[in-house]
């Protein structure tokens, strides 16, 4: 199942703030299951790419220390009508992509 991403973006004076809310547990692999005494297996987003009209703008690497259901905001140089996409991959290989047109 692909990872769900909700996005919003608005351009003002050639710079757009792009916000993304991702539905993901962000399990670091260090949290213990008290019943079994074993850690919950790691499952966190490690790669994030933000692209404007298909050109990569921001490339991020995350660890399990980013909060669950991550919120991310970045600023890119783009105008209204440009397409901005956020693509993510987690450490288990699950992927998610979302694209919006800037307002």
């Amino acid at each position, binding site marked *: 199942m692909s990872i769900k991403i909700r996005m919003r973006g608005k351009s003002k004076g050639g710079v757009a703030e792009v916000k993304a809310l991702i539905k993901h547990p962000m399990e670091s692999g260090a949290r213990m299951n008290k019943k079994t005494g074993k850690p919950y297996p790691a499952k966190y987003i490690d790669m994030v790419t*933000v692209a404007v009209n298909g050109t990569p703008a921001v490339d991020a*690497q*995350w660890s399990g220390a980013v909060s669950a259901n991550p919120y991310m*905001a970045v600023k890119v140089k783009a105008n209204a009508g440009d397409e901005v996409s956020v693509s993510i991959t987690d450490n288990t290989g699950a992927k998610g992509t979302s694209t919006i047109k800037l307002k």
Partner: protein
Amino acid sequence: MKRRSFLKGTLATGAAAVAVNAGLLTPSTVLADWNAKAFNAKTTDDALSGVFGSASTADSGDIKLKAPAIAENGAVTPVTVDASGIDGVETIAIMASKNPMPLVCEYTFASNAVGYVSTRIKMGQTMNVIAVVKAGGKLLKAQQEVKVTIGGCGG
């Protein structure tokens, strides 16, 4: 940037797995995509060396680091790093000084992006949030202490 997108492309088509099997790429080359050395580092200095190849930073007032003075829930600490006042920002790394693995995230910016990041991070206890910005070959740093009343790790 090019090498990373190349690796991504090959991973997407599954060709990387074939390449590994054929011995064309050693597994370490593929894993180099995610900066494991920096993320697994136990100290902020080691993490910095892993990301930037150097741990010598200079304090800068041009980085606007926004974090709460007191975080009621360390599992969701909002952090904003605004380095848009600096020209040529290449990378922003966010670290939590006393986390078991301090490096939380690193962002690399192309020319069509602005040096600005807002996110939410987990913090186990009261500690400093450190933002390190690489711009024009220099490493600039800003930090702020965040008091955590409920830890974000260990549950």
